[in-house]
């Protein structure tokens, strides 16, 4: 994908690209911090037919929504690229001893050497959860390590 960057003197920066479905979209980053999401006209590709102004919170929310599934996918790509590196998505089953307990209590890195890099809860991704992050039944824990220690994590999360 080819992202083009254009300076807008006095305003900020524009990044734009063509989607595979043939639409042209852009994001304008104003110096004031405002972001505009721009969708271009099909008939007149030079014209912005929609310009949606987003404040900081809205831009963050949009990034989260668009980015969540991508993080898991990128981890899988990483896994494929590096020999010996394993990333697993491990669900916390209803009967798990750690449902309702914190990541710190599970002492996963100390016990196995594998790392918890993210937790997916109801479609939202929490990246790099801290030791006081509390698991819930139904969470999907994303673990990175080697073949052996990731399967140990799987056992811990299911049976304690």
């Amino acid at each position: 994908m080819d992202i083009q960057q254009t300076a807008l003197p006095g305003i900020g920066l524009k990044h734009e690209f063509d989607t595979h479905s043939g639409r042209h979209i852009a994001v304008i980053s104003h110096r004031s911090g405002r972001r505009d999401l721009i969708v271009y006209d099909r008939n007149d590709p030079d014209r912005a037919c929609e310009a949606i102004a987003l404040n900081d919170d809205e831009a963050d929310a949009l990034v989260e929504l668009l980015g969540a599934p991508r993080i898991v996918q990128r981890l899988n790509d990483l896994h494929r690229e590096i020999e010996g590196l394993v990333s697993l998505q491990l669900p916390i089953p209803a009967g798990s001893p750690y449902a309702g307990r914190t990541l710190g209590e599970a002492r996963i890195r100390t016990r196995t050497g594998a790392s918890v890099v993210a937790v997916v809860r109801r479609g939202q991704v929490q990246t790099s959860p801290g030791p006081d992050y509390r698991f819930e039944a139904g969470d999907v824990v994303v673990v990175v390590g080697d073949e052996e220690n990731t399967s140990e994590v799987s056992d811990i999360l299911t049976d304690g």
Partner: protein
Amino acid sequence: MHHTAIVFLELGAIVLALGVLGALALRFGISPIPLYLVAGLAFGEGGLVPLETSESFVAIVAEIGVVLLLLTLGLEYNANELVTSLRGNALAGVVDLVANAAPGVIAALLLGWGPVAAVALGGVTYMTSSGITAKVLSDLGWIGNRETPVVLSLLVFEDLTMAVYLPVLTALLAGVGVLSGAVSVGIALLTVTVVLVVSLKFGRFIEAFVSSPSAEVLLLKVLGLALLVAGIAQQLQVSAAVGAFLVGIALSGELAHEARALLAPLRDLFAAVFFVFFGLQTDPSKIPPVVGLAVLLAVIGMATKLATGAFAARRAGVARAGRARAGIGLIPRGEFNIVIAGLAVAAGVHPDLGPLAATYVLILAAFGPLAARLVEPLLTRLVRSSPS
């Protein structure tokens, strides 16, 4: 009546009238600049309610208005942007200069106003109002359009040209000889270059000096620095406005953004008074004889800007509708045309130049944004009906 009482009454009447006119402009979505000019005509000599005592005070306020206009313009850009823009769009910028200054220069020469008036009138017909154009682009949602970077870089080029043009004009208006004129132009070019280099390499030192967590301190430092440099520039006959512009260029990043936000209300007040002051100096009874010429120049001015925009956008690979939008976006004239005309009027170049410039800007400041609004749906329909 007591002197202070009269001054307050007159100033109050002016500022209040401007407020009401501003609200009116907002209501109809047009630039308030033409309305401010009309207000000045009404208050001035031969107008409806001529001012008696406060004109000298208004004159100083107007001068500060010019400094603030140029300072905030400079704050919008940083030196990097200027250099990049200059490199990429020099040809389009030169076409813009030649095509749009020529009508003013030729008109003044044909009228027999002399070469100095020709240089001044060329400046009046050349400059696009970056303030009005930026507002049109943002109001119509054109900022994301592909022709917009072209329009913006032309505006940058014009502003940089002005940094060289104003000192030349100042020297010519001062009536200095060819030699000292050349010297003062040399000083101007040198100053502009030095400031650009200094702000590219050492901008952070100036920023470290000006920067402050307190909005009050920042405001006072930036304003003080701008007025001081403007004064020095005026003394060197480089033009006060250019001094202020260069101070704005030297400041960049977050600091420039903050300073701009702080200065905006001040600029709005002082610049509004500047437009009134220009109107004050213009006798309304002098306008009717020049209306025909002003309309002719305005029509030519629209055509030349349309052609310039189309040419520049075409070079950037923009299709037909976008080329038309680029041209229309460049039509509005406004604040800087009045700044140029103001300098010429103050030097007493030609009695008809003030009224002509006022009428010209009145037409194009009002009609430019209107044209953009009218043409937008037309262009959209045109593109829809002929699918590519």
